[in-house]
């Protein structure tokens, strides 16, 4: 076997090995601690997101109920995410009908009563006073 054939044989054996080494994916063993931390973070993030969405939906429901004249259920005191300190926009006149209401009647009867009383006094005075000359004539 010539030296040239030996080299070709070596290349024929070695090149696939090199090629396989280049295309072989290295899969490291799982770091269980890191995965656990990531999962915890993801769960916490999802919980927070869901809670915020729930809070937004709760506030929206409150607003819709407010607009519709329906008393909204009170927010749970323990759900801190649902009651952020800077967002409660509570309209205080929800007891008023949505379609509007009439202005209350503020017409007092006292002036009319007083005027009637004054009129009766005047008439009574005239009648009593008018009767006096007749009595004097008698």
């Amino acid at each position, binding site marked *: 076997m010539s030296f040239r054939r030996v080299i070709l044989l070596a290349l024929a054996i070695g090149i696939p090995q090199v090629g396989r080494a280049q295309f072989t994916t290295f899969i490291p063993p799982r770091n269980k601690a890191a995965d656990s931390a990531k999962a915890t973070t993801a769960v916490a993030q999802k919980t927070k997101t869901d809670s915020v969405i729930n809070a937004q939906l709760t506030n929206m429901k409150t607003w819709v109920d407010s607009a519709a004249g329906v008393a909204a259920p009170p927010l749970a005191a323990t759900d801190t995410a649902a009651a952020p300190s800077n967002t409660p926009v509570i309209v205080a006149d929800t007891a008023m*009908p949505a379609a*509007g209401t009439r202005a209350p009647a503020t017409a*007092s009867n006292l002036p009319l009563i007083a005027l009637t009383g004054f009129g009766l006094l005047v008439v009574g005075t005239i*009648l009593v006073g008018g009767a006096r000359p007749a009595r004097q004539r008698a």
Partner: protein
Amino acid sequence: MRKTFGYVFYIAGGLLLSFAAGQYAIGVLRADQARQAWDSAEAKATVALARSVAFHHGKREPIVDGAPVARLVIPHIDLDEIVLEGVGDEELNAGPGHLPGSAFPGERGNAVISAHRDRHFNHLDLLEAGDTITTESGAIRQSWVVVAKRVVDKDAPALVRSIDPVLTLTTCWPIRYLGPAPERLIVTAKPLPRRDQRVAARS
């Protein structure tokens, strides 16, 4: 006979006048009591508590009718009165009344205050756009500016909800008129910006 009728009229007129005078006197007495209660700060605390409960739970604690809930000052018509909760005869006889269910002055929403045309709001028609109003409710002092004045039919749904703070003053119209009023005078005011201040901090 004529003399008898005269005495009957005389007595009836005296009774009616006495009744009207007595009602006015009771109104003045109750207004004075309301002012004393307001000045004692107990009423302010009650309103502040109701406002706080409404803020955190979306539902207001009911305030009994006749309780002082605010102070209303309108310099242009020389008015300085304590507002009572309720718009019944007894409340309106003593002072302007806060329409139950409406917001307190300074809160988000429409705060409605009504009064008799022949008593506390007898000069409400003199208000014009641009006049200022001051209210104190709970611990909040708020200045307002009149933005609209209109006359509506007595059955018109003129009082509507609002997301923003609004102050609405109402009385019967025409003001100088005897008997049931066919219309209502509605004065609307908006809050003046940057004028909110804590009464407690001021005093």
